[in-house]
């Protein structure tokens, strides 16, 4: 199961990279506020527009190419988020993916959480994704 979004941005690599890695700029679009130590292993917190607080840890920083981090809400599952950049004629293509690393529970209901705590593997989640696009 994975969320994937691709967007063409009318800005050069350096500007997009700055927007992805500078806490002030991140606070303009990713959440508000965003505080991230931008180095592998660096920690941070992100408050999103729904008021949800996520803790984050940076995984990889490959300047102007790739950034990956893991984040998790206070009582929720960990997801891995990656940003990949590629220069295009008019600017920069950005590909974002978010992949939950464990079972997700949309609502934190005890019954549902218990249901999902059972072992589910990737295939089963992939099946769910297939159900979504039917």
């Amino acid at each position, binding site marked *: *199961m994975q*969320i994937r*979004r691709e*967007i063409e*941005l*009318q*800005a050069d690599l350096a*500007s*997009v990279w700055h*927007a992805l890695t500078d806490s002030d*700029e991140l606070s*303009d*679009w*990713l959440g508000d506020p965003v505080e991230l130590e931008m180095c592998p292993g660096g920690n941070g917190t992100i408050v*999103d*527009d*729904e008021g949800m607080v996520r803790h984050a840890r940076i995984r990889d920083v490959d300047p102007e190419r790739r950034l990956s981090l893991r984040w998790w809400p206070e009582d929720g599952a960990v*997801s891995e988020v990656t940003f990949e950049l590629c220069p295009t004629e*008019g600017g920069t293509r*950005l590909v*974002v993916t*978010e992949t*939950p690393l464990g079972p*997700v*529970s*949309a*609502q934190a209901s005890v019954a*549902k959480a218990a*249901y*999902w705590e*059972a*072992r*589910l*593997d990737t*295939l*089963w*989640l992939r*099946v*769910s*994704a*297939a*159900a*979504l696009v*039917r």
Partner: protein
Amino acid sequence: MFGALADPTRRHVVERLVAGGPETATALARDLPISRQAVVKHLQSLSDAGLVDAAREGREVKYAIRPEPFSDAIEWMMRAGAQWDRRLERLSHVLGQKVRDVGGTSEER
């Protein structure tokens, strides 16, 4: 309960039912290196786990996926997807603003 999905044959059956809609055990068995009886047994386990429903259609029994157990994953995907759409729209806006601020032009999207 989720032991029902630990078995690769059962996962295959679930995948088939998700992708292709309701099927009979006979049709499912055609794709698998096991007997129809063995497929029926797997379907019974899936049905016991609440993942599959059996419905009689004339002389046939068709098996179908029950969507409820899948709904948490789908709900997560829809919500996380919508959040990324909003974030990327803001990012695009912020970068567009910056381009204009330094005197650049931005083409019509």
